Each structure stands twice: as structure tokens, then as C-alpha cells.
């Protein structure tokens, strides 16, 4: 073993750093592989690579000498607990260890998790960890082959024990007293919408051999939640922290005419902050901040704006008023056949369906705590569906390098998707208020802020055309959806304050899941 400098594992590199006095671990880190085809990569992320800050990031998987295993993932929990159940199962399955050996899951902190990307699509999101686990299993087999002096092919793994040639060792035993680094290849851009992905082709366990995936396991994070031990995002406190509230405009396009004033004796510690159209208030006491925001709102004047068609006129607006030719139609990848053939069908059905804007309305409105230091660097404590992309948005807003922004993720209220860009409301406003007053500021959105300004699913007008054969069977099915982008990930505070933002979603810039979305017409048929 001591002769080992480096071992090649299906394109990954296993190396020993130095012999430790006590303990030992195998740590999976990564090297960034430049995108083979920049065009293809920027199509998926909208941006080129270049924001990797590997020195500050933790590893995907750590196998320790006591047989415990730690996972790190940029994906976060939105209530389904998949990263604590399914992700552990997927990794345990590929490694060949009992799921209980995976004792710790570190999630969503941008300074200690490796991959980034949004928390949407569990299975796609888990593929990187699955491959990292497969590389790790192969590395463990390589270590065991050297230790036992037998061929790799003669070894087998069962419940975290590798056996062969009459010898056996636990995973922990194989890493004892060694500082092992397994460097695996990755691709992508850490702070892009989709983050980094593990690439290469380590051998994956065939699903026919699964013993862990597919079993029902208990969710380990429920007991601490139920007992009251869990620190939720709204529970985080920092020394010197102020409580902030925001007074949002009366309508989407209103601009500030004049901000209200506060009566000093009634609000002894409250301080009003105005940045462009962003109006906020901070106070030492949360109840004072709540009352001050109400008083401030009552005295704040906004311009009139009537740019929206109103709910009742929305279907007509979508069907007649929008010039859809301005947007190129995207065709669903699932489309096949020729939809036009439906026009020759013996019977046709056609109907239009209107889907209004749908409020996601988490039970707890978004709450964030920002700490902007005097050098302008930011630590943002929040509950985010895409912390690395949020980090990019905050850095853009602040005009700061990515290395100056850290996003930490805590448990919070489920918000049911569409905050895939990482922001759900108060994050950037907390940052701007903290910068303005030079103290950490916690911004809790109130119920009305949530109902007016938080994530909604976009409205959609869908026309479905079905062509029936003479025997009544469906011959063609065509669905055309028209609506605005499925989501807009711009930071609301940045937009209100007139500061730089990531840009409105367009089919070209990849923001807002445009490429996967129905931001324009889609058509297709099956026959």
C-alpha cells in the first residue's frame, strides 16, 4: 500500500496524500473537464464554465475509518426529504454498504457542497452522486486488491465488507491511517442553473441486483423536526441582527412617488431604507418592525399602473392580444409523427383550456437572514431551491465576485417548485437592507407579500386537438400551450432597487427554464 502513489479508476484518479497519525478517510473531490462542445454546454446552462472555486468546496462522498460515510450535495430538501432517504439509498446501493452507514448528509451550503444546480428532478439530480459512488466503490475495490494481493475481479462486496482470496476488510479498515483522494471528472458551471455534473462511465450496478433502492426506509430527519431540535431558516439568529420588513409597491409596475415617514416616539429604533423603488424598514424588535412597516405602507405613495389585463380578461389576452410570432415556438422533445395528419381524421375534437396563475403560497412566507460585512462580502442564510444560482444572482446584484457570496441553506416551508432559480422572495431584500444599515438583517415576508410577490405558476392557454379514426381510436393528439415563461428568476429586490439582475427569461439566455418550458407555442402529435 505504501508504494501507492496513484491508481487509475475508470478515468478517476486515486491518490494518497500523507500518512496520518490517526484516523483516515477516502474523500471524493473532482476536477473540472472543459466542455467538449462549448456550444452544447452553453445551450444547457446559458453560460460558459469558469466559476469553479474548488478550493472552497467540500467533497461529494467521504468514507471514514469508522465505516461512517458523509455525503455532500448542492441539492436541498423541499419537504420530500429525498436527499435524506432516496439519495442515501442510491449511494449505499452503488457503494455496497448498508444505508445506515451513511450517517450525514450536508446539503445546499455553497461553501461546502460540490455540485450546485436546482432541486428539481430527483433522479436526474441523483445521477452525479450515483456516479461518484460508483467511482468510490471501484476505488475501494482497487485498494482491497492491492492490500490482499489478489486480482480485482476476485473480489466481492457485501454490506460494506470487501472479500476475496480468503481475506476481507471493511471500508473503514481500507482507509485507516490514509488520506486518500479520489479525483473524479465533472462538467458544467457551478453557479449555472444546472450546476456541475459528474461525467465518465464508472460501472453502475444493474438494477436487477438492487437490494436497497426500492425499499421503504424511515426518514431520519423527522424525529429532530418533531421534537423541536431542528433549526429552521426562520429560527436562525446572529449577534446584532435587526428585523426587517419590506413595503412592496401597490402593483407590479408602480414606481415610488414618496416613502412614508415614521413617528419616532412610536417607533424608537425603526429605520427606513429606500433604494430606488425598494422601501424597507429595520428595527431592533420584530413587532416594532411589523408595526413600522404597516405605518410606513400607509404613508407611502406609488404611481398608478394598469399594465395587466386583469384576471377576467386573461384568457382573451392570451388568445388574441399577444403577438405569439414574436416568440419562436418550441416543440416538445416527446413529439412524434405528423400532427397535420389529424386534419384528415374522420372525426376531430378541439377544445381550449385556461390555466390561471396559480399561487404556490408556502405556509410560511419566505424568510432570510443576510449578513453583509463591511468589505461587501455576503453570507445569506436561507431556504433555497438552487443556492449556487441564487449566489450568482446576489453577486450580480452586488457587483461582487462570486467568491464574496456564501449561501447557507436551512429547512423551511415547502414551496412546490418554480423557485428553481433559488430565490423565493426576501433573500435579496435582506441583503440590500443589511448592506444599507451595516448589520445582519432578517427579512420575514408577511402573508400579503407572499400572496402578491412570491412564486406563482404561470398562466397558460392550452388548445388540444384530437383526431379520431372511424373506429373511435385516437389517431393524432396535438397540444399547443401559450403562456409567459414558466418562471422568472430575477431577484425582486434587485429589480425594485434598479440594480443589476440576471435578466428576464428569454428563449436565448436559459434563465427560467426556457428550454424546458412552454414559454412559447409547442406542438406535437402522436399517432
Amino acid at each position: 500500500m505504501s508504494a501507492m502513489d496513484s491508481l487509475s479508476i475508470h478515468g478517476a484518479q486515486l491518490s494518497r496524500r500523507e500518512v496520518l497519525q490517526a484516523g483516515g478517510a477516502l474523500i471524493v473531490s473532482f476536477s473540472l473537464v472543459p466542455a467538449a462542445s462549448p456550444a452544447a454546454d452553453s445551450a444547457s446552462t446559458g453560460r460558459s464554465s469558469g466559476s469553479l472555486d474548488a478550493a472552497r468546496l467540500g467533497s461529494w462522498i467521504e468514507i471514514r475509518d469508522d465505516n461512517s460515510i458523509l455525503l455532500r450535495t448542492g441539492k436541498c430538501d423541499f419537504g420530500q426529504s429525498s436527499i435524506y432517504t432516496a439519495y442515501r439509498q442510491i449511494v449505499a446501493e452503488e457503494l455496497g454498504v448498508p444505508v445506515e452507514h451513511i450517517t450525514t448528509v450536508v446539503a445546499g451550503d455553497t461553501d461546502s457542497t460540490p455540485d450546485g444546480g436546482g432541486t428539481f428532478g430527483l433522479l436526474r439530480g441523483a445521477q452525479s452522486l450515483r456516479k461518484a459512488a460508483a467511482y468510490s466503490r471501484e476505488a475501494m475495490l482497487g485498494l482491497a486488491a492491492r492490500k490482499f494481493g489478489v486480482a480485482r475481479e476476485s473480489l466481492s462486496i457485501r454490506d460494506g465488507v470487501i472479500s476475496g482470496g480468503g481475506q476481507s476488510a471493511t471500508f473503514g479498515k481500507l482507509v485507516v491511517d490514509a488520506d486518500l483522494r479520489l479525483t473524479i471528472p465533472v462538467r458544467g458551471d457551478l453557479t449555472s442553473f444546472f450546476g456541475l455534473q459528474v461525467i465518465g462511465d464508472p460501472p453502475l450496478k444493474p438494477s436487477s441486483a438492487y437490494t436497497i433502492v426500492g425499499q421503504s426506509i424511515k426518514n431520519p430527519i423527522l424525529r429532530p423536526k418533531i421534537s423541536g431540535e431542528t433549526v429552521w431558516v426562520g429560527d436562525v439568529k446572529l449577534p446584532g441582527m435587526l428585523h426587517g420588513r419590506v413595503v412592496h409597491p401597490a402593483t407590479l409596475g408602480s414606481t415610488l412617488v414618496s416613502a412614508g415617514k415614521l413617528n419616532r416616539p412610536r417607533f424608537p429604533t425603526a429605520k427606513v431604507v429606500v433604494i430606488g423603488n425598494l422601501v424597507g424598514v429595520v428595527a431592533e424588535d420584530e413587532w416594532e418592525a411589523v408595526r413600522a412597516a404597516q405605518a410606513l405602507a400607509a404613508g407611502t405613495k406609488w404611481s398608478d399602473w394598469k399594465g395587466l389585463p386583469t384576471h377576467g380578461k386573461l384568457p382573451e389576452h392570451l388568445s388574441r392580444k399577444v403577438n405569439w410570432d414574436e416568440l419562436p415556438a418550441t416543440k416538445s422533445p416527446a413529439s412524434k409523427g405528423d400532427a397535420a395528419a389529424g386534419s384528415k381524421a374522420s372525426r376531430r375534437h378541439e377544445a381550449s383550456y385556461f390555466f390561471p396563475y396559480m399561487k404556490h403560497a408556502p405556509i410560511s412566507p419566505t424568510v432570510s437572514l443576510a449578513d453583509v460585512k463591511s468589505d461587501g462580502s455576503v453570507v445569506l442564510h436561507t431556504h433555497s431551491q438552487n443556492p449556487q444560482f441564487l449566489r450568482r444572482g446576489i453577486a450580480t446584484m452586488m457587483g461582487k465576485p462570486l467568491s464574496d457570496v456564501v449561501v447557507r441553506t436551512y429547512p423551511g416551508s415547502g414551496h412546490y417548485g418554480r423557485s428553481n432559480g433559488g430565490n423565493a422572495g426576501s433573500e435579496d431584500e435582506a441583503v440590500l437592507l443589511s448592506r444599507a444599515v451595516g448589520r445582519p438583517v432578517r427579512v420575514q415576508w408577511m402573508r400579503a407579500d407572499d400572496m402578491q410577490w412570491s412564486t406563482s405558476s404561470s398562466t397558460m392557454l392550452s388548445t388540444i386537438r384530437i383526431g379520431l379514426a372511424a373506429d373511435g381510436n385516437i389517431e393524432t393528439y396535438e397540444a399547443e400551450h401559450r403562456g409567459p415563461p414558466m418562471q422568472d428568476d430575477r431577484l425582486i429586490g434587485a429589480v425594485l432597487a434598479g440594480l443589476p439582475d440576471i435578466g428576464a427569461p428569454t428563449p436565448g439566455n436559459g434563465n427560467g427554464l426556457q428550454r424546458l418550458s412552454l414559454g412559447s407555442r409547442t406542438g406535437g402529435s402522436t399517432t
Partner: protein
Amino acid sequence: MITLNVNGIQRSVKASPDTPLLYVLRNELGVMTPKFGCGMAQCGACSVLLGNQEIRACITPISALEGKEITTVEGLPARWARQKKLPPPTAGGALHPVQEAWIEEQVPQCGICQFGMMIKVTELLEANPKPTDADIKAALTTSGPSPHLCRCASYAAILDGARRAAELMRGDAS
């Protein structure tokens, strides 16, 4: 200064008397399971027990609570131990049967509404050890200022949890 009795401990608080209990619990007393959901008695995320009655901490000023007994989810294990004359609970030990039932039945999705749910079900089961499903549903929907809302829609699991909690509190064999 107002003195509050929270989870069996007398606490003097500095907050002004009009401050809703929710902010005092969370910011001054470090009692964090009551959550902010609406601030308008419309969701139940902030529920606590006042004596043996569920109230909404987000709209109840502390001036109304001097000397009254307030129980939050943090205080449920000790409340159960007192009622059953058991030794005081220890950290990491058994929780209140409602909490244990919530874990057994894996009730929560995100879980942030569940503190209020467990408070409401505790209120119900202390008064009615053998509730029907209709009783449970009525407790969680029509009995208070608003229904208890779960945006993750874990309602079926909440019903399972409440049924199981009733069994555990009665001491029925599983």
C-alpha cells in the same frame, strides 16, 4: 414587565404588552416551534396551548396571558410526564405520544405546519380520548378561528397520526 408561564417555567419578559405571544416566544424566550405563517389567525402554524385550549400565538398579545399556563411542542413531553406521573423526560428520550405517533406514521412532508397540528390534536385527545374521524376533522377544520392549513397537503397522514396518537394515549396495544 409581564411574567409568562411557558412550558412550566416562569419567565419575565421585556416586550411591550401589545406584542403578540409568537414574537415573544421566538425572539425573547427562544421557544421556536410555534411558526409564523400568516400573522392573522388564518393558518394554525403558530398554535400553542393556553391551559388546555389551543390559541393562535400570532394574534394574542402577551398582556392577556399574565400568569396563564402556556404549552408549546417543546413542552409536550413534560406535560405528558406530569399527567401520567412519569419521571421527567430526558433529552433524546420519549416524546409526547402525539409526537411519537407523528414519527411512527411519518406524518410531515416539510413539517412546518405540524407543530400547530400536534398542538391541536393534543387539545382534542386530552378532552376526547376516543375521537371519531369526524371529531378529528372537526377539530382541525371548524373548531378554531381557521382550519389548520398544510400546504404540503399531508392531511391524510395527519388523520393517521391523530388516530395512532389516540391509541398511544389510551395505552391501547399496538
